[in-house]
């Protein structure tokens, strides 16, 4: 709908007076209250039937597949600074996503870059907070209509493009699947809001005594979501998910002005599953000490040599080097550079042969730790299955949704929002050392390369929790990967003495770096992270034979003019 008064972007000072429609800021809804008798679901079924039977125009094909997906999300979050609450907000929203396809699975309106946009994007519309029949039908009616019209136009643009462009081995547009019925029970959001607020007050109050820290924050968030889909090809699925997360972040500047920050993160499936408040407070204190220690550390210097990735840092390394590269293998027409960078390496060696990497979304925990990447049916309505990505060093598969690629046509039940993506990643190694032996090996390799020290990394920057001075990256371009920088890393001297590293970024990282993994630890760490969807990685420590670190830039921001008011003594 055209609302009045959109400010044209080119108008320098656009002044407008309007009826100030209340900012459509906040989304609505009761995420998870519907059951089998839900009016919303009944409306979806009735409007689906009407759309399939009657939505058509003269002289153009009718829809061949219509899918409606109801997404419910409920969440609560709060955060505090220095013991005082900064925000506390619940949110509740329901929306429905409409996918209307025209043509046939062999050739339809999707998977084509039509001048500036990728065709086949599903359209979402917000639903009422009430579980209501008629408003749902009203929204589905208008959205299906708009989707159908653009699908018809996209298909004809794609057919025209194919008449003038030769495309060898064009993959089909959609993999056929069996009808499926799978309904998971709904979980309403359960949270003790006052207890959560008390928790973040307590965790953030740790920094009241931290003289070297300029700013800090502790946050809690918990959410429950559900996704209910029906389609004209007999799909009837409902998947659900829950999570709870506590984070603490702190930031400051070193004497030379360099920004430094640190973080602590805990994930669980529900607030009850989080560690105790005492345990988290102790964790926040350790993080504050680690940060305060690093503030006074020397700046990073040029380094080429062995690097030991421990714990969650090893999991992030595998995520950014391998897992991200095997995700979204989509190869739409008109975008020759698209697809996984491994698209020509199937069955070839990509890691040392002592590594095997499997993704198994069907597992919900690992040795008592929840795996948030768990799902039983993927976002395309395909049953989840264990998937061997790398077998003894050889690439066996990448993440597949129902969008075929040239080398792999079938779905392997790994659709995350319609594109291939990870669930629970397990890295297994047949060449392991104990923690002590692995640290000794780091020094042995460093000594061998005639270096004064090796580098040990404990924490890497991550995209789901930001930290000052180390911005998460992980982007891939032209064969090289901008690996996220370390947050907490140490120089380990040959005599075993350790010294924190301040600043420092990786460089020269490529897909080939995977083959420089030299030996691994014998005890895996479990990482849960939110990156679009949730992903879990179970991975042992990794010793990489050669990595390159560069010096941080010389130019830094000035320090604050005045001391922190809590330590100014007035």
């Amino acid at each position, binding site marked *: *709908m*055209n*609302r*009045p*008064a959109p*400010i044209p972007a080119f*108008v*320098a*000072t*656009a*002044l*407008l*007076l*309007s*009826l*100030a*429609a*209340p900012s459509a*800021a*906040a*989304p*609505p809804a009761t995420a998870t209250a519907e059951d089998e008798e839900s009016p919303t679901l009944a409306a979806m079924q*009735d*409007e689906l039937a*009407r*759309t399939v039977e*009657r*939505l058509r*125009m003269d002289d153009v094909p009718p829809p061949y597949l219509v899918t409606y997906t109801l997404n419910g999300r409920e969440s609560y979050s709060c955060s505090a*600074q*220095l*013991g*005082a*609450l*900064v*925000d*506390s*907000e619940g949110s509740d929203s329901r929306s429905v996503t409409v996918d209307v396809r025209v043509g046939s699975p062999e050739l339809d309106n999707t998977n084509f870059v039509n001048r500036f946009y990728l065709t086949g994007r599903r359209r979402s519309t917000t639903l*009422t*907070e*009430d579980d*209501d029949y*008629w*408003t749902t*039908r*009203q929204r589905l*009616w*208008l959205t299906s*209509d*708009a989707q159908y019209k653009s699908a018809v136009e996209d298909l004809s643009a794609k057919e025209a493009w194919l008449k003038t462009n030769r495309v060898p081995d064009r993959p089909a547009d959609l993999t056929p699947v069996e009808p499926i019925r799978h309904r998971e029970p709904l979980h309403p959001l359960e949270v003790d809001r006052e207890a959560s607020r008390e928790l973040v007050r307590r965790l953030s109050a740790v920094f*009241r005594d931290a003289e070297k820290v300029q700013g800090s924050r502790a946050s809690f968030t918990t959410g429950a979501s559900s996704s209910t889909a029906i389609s004209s090809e007999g799909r009837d699925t409902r998947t659900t998910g829950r999570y709870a997360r506590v984070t603490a972040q702190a930031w400051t500047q070193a004497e030379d002005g360099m920004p430094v920050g640190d973080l602590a993160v805990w994930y669980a499936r529900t607030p009850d599953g989080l560690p105790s408040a005492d345990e988290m407070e102790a964790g926040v204190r350790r993080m504050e000490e680690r940060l305060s220690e690093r503030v006074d550390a020397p700046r990073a210097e040029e380094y080429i040599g062995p690097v030991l990735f421990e714990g969650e840092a090893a999991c992030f390394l595998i995520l950014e080097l391998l897992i991200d590269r095997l995700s979204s293998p989509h190869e739409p027409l008109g975008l020759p550079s698209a697809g996984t960078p491994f698209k020509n390496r199937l069955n070839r060696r990509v890691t040392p042969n002592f590594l095997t990497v499997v993704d198994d979304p069907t597992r919900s925990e690992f040795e008592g730790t929840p795996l948030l990447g768990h799902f039983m049916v993927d976002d395309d309505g395909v049953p989840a299955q264990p998937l061997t990505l790398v077998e003894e060093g050889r690439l066996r598969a990448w993440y597949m949704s129902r969008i075929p690629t040239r080398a792999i046509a079938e779905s392997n039940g790994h659709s995350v929002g319609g594109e291939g993506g990870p669930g629970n990643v397990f890295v297994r190694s047949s060449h392991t050392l104990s923690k002590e032996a692995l640290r000794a090996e780091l020094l042995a390799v460093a000594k061998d390369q005639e270096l004064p020290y090796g580098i040990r990394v404990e924490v890497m920057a991550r995209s789901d929790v930001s930290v000052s001075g180390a911005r998460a990256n992980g982007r891939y371009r032209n064969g090289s990967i901008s690996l996220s920088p370390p947050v907490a890393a140490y120089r380990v001297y040959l005599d075993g003495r350790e010294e924190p590293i301040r600043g420092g970024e990786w460089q020269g990282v490529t897909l080939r770096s995977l083959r420089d993994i030299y030996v691994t630890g014998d005890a895996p760490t479990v990482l849960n992270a939110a990156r679009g969807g949730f992903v879990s990685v179970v991975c042992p420590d990794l010793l990489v034979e050669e990595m390159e670190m560069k010096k941080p830039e010389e130019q830094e921001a*000035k320090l*604050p*003019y*005045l001391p*922190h*008011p*809590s330590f*100014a003594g*007035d």
Partner: protein
Amino acid sequence: MSSFLLALLLLASAEADAAAAPADDPVLLRALERELARSFEGLANVESDPLYFLAYRATESKSLSVAGAYGALLRSDRSHDRRLDVEARIGSPELDSTHQIRGEFEFGPSPASATLPLEDDEEAIRAAAWSATDRAFKDSLQRFLKVKTNEAVKVEAEDASPDFSIEPPSDYREPMVDLVADEERWQERLRRLSAVFREYPFLHESSVSLRAEAENRVYASSEGTRLIFGRTHFRLSIEASTKADDGMDLQLYDSFEGPSEETMPDDARIEAAVRDLAERLQRLKDAPVVEPYAGPAIIMNRACGVFFHEIFGHRIEGHRQKNVDEGQTFTKKVGTEIMPPFLSVTDDPTRGRFGATYLNGHYKYDDEGVPAQAVPLVRDGVLENFLMARSPIEGFPDSNGHGRCSAGNAPVSRQGNLFVDAKDRVSFERLREMLVEEVRTQGKPYGMIFHDISGGFTTTQRRGPQAFKVIPLYVVRVYADGRDDEVVRGVDLVGTPLASITKMVAAADDDAVFNGSCGAESGWVPVSAVAPSVLVKEIEIEKKAKSQERPPLLPTPLHDETDGDVPSDDGADGQEDAQ
């Protein structure tokens, strides 16, 4: 450097104030006062360019937003936040860090902002203020260097006025306001009232919504100003949209405004407004598309208020008179006739009501701590004054209490309650007869009446055309031969400001209030415009840009006769009761 001495003197008084502050002042003010005093003392002369002015503007807002659509609750959300904006001026009032850097585009000045704790914890509030102050100070230092370089390399400015006016400090403290609204009752009412739209099958989207806000501002400056004041505001909005058969998107809005829950209309009045809106939209959907036209027209009172706000009000905002990128339509016109002598215009934010009607643009102090003032802008057609914030212009060295902004922005001069007054008024019936006479005189087939204008936009900058566009929602053609009036659609009102006003010839005695929000470089601020219906000798309209999408292929599921279970009106009521 005399002004610098003055600033120092004012600092001394500020410190005295802080010491004498009564113990029961809110923690928020106390925390800000202490950090302000420490910062100003510590930063004033720490660099060679002095910090001569420092102000904290804290905004605490609570809001409730409830909306219903077709009988169901669309949303019901509350929010609560506290923000701090810091203004740090470096240099001297004659030339400071806010001075325009010529040749460089900036949308507007932006202060350093911080999120403040919601809880009254002095230590946590001061820590947030400290870090925002440090950022504001560094930004201003850097900007002042650029200003000095820019002044050295550019030609002498046409308007050599100082950057900041000296104003006496104010001290005004009201009890903080809170948001009082019965959320559950509104949910129930808006479900019920939005269900009325179900009876109109041609509609695509519709809603009835409420937005209630309570905002407290706490202001403290190094000059000694201390302010605490609040504002509560309720707006009930009705909106509906559809598509004409030729693809044109159509929408209508209506709203009610007031300072409290009690001032909102009752169910019967809202229902009548919902039905009226739906019926007008139906007529609009069936109406013929307008042809480009230039000829006589009446701009109805509320629409006329919007018209003056856009084409006149924005051009007499003081800071636009010295910004060299601005069109400066009226800059050199003080003392000359800029509109027909029967018209006068005043902006008066001190008025809270017009008759019984609430005025949205009312305030006691502006966002620079200056008391609001009534400002006669045009008297008998002659331009007398501008809307002034603390940025002086040639001939207007002082603020007249019009420096306004929303949280997160720095204040500039803005409108409050704009009043358009006219002499020799006639009844609306007579004005309509005059329109028909004018149509005949000009030999046109018809004239126009603009009933409602949703808003619009105007460019005041030189790089854009000096033009405006307002979006009429409901326009009627009046024929000279006695045929019935006819609703038309697809109208855009265009023109250049000076030409449009000078062609006004008469006004009716039917003043009405338009309440709205105005967006510009200092954010969204509440405003009102009060005006009579006005006859214009010639106005220009053009065809609105139109969507090329066909209307939906299927009828609305609410009224699809071939679909199994269409709800009867009874059925619809039954379902609401079940909620």
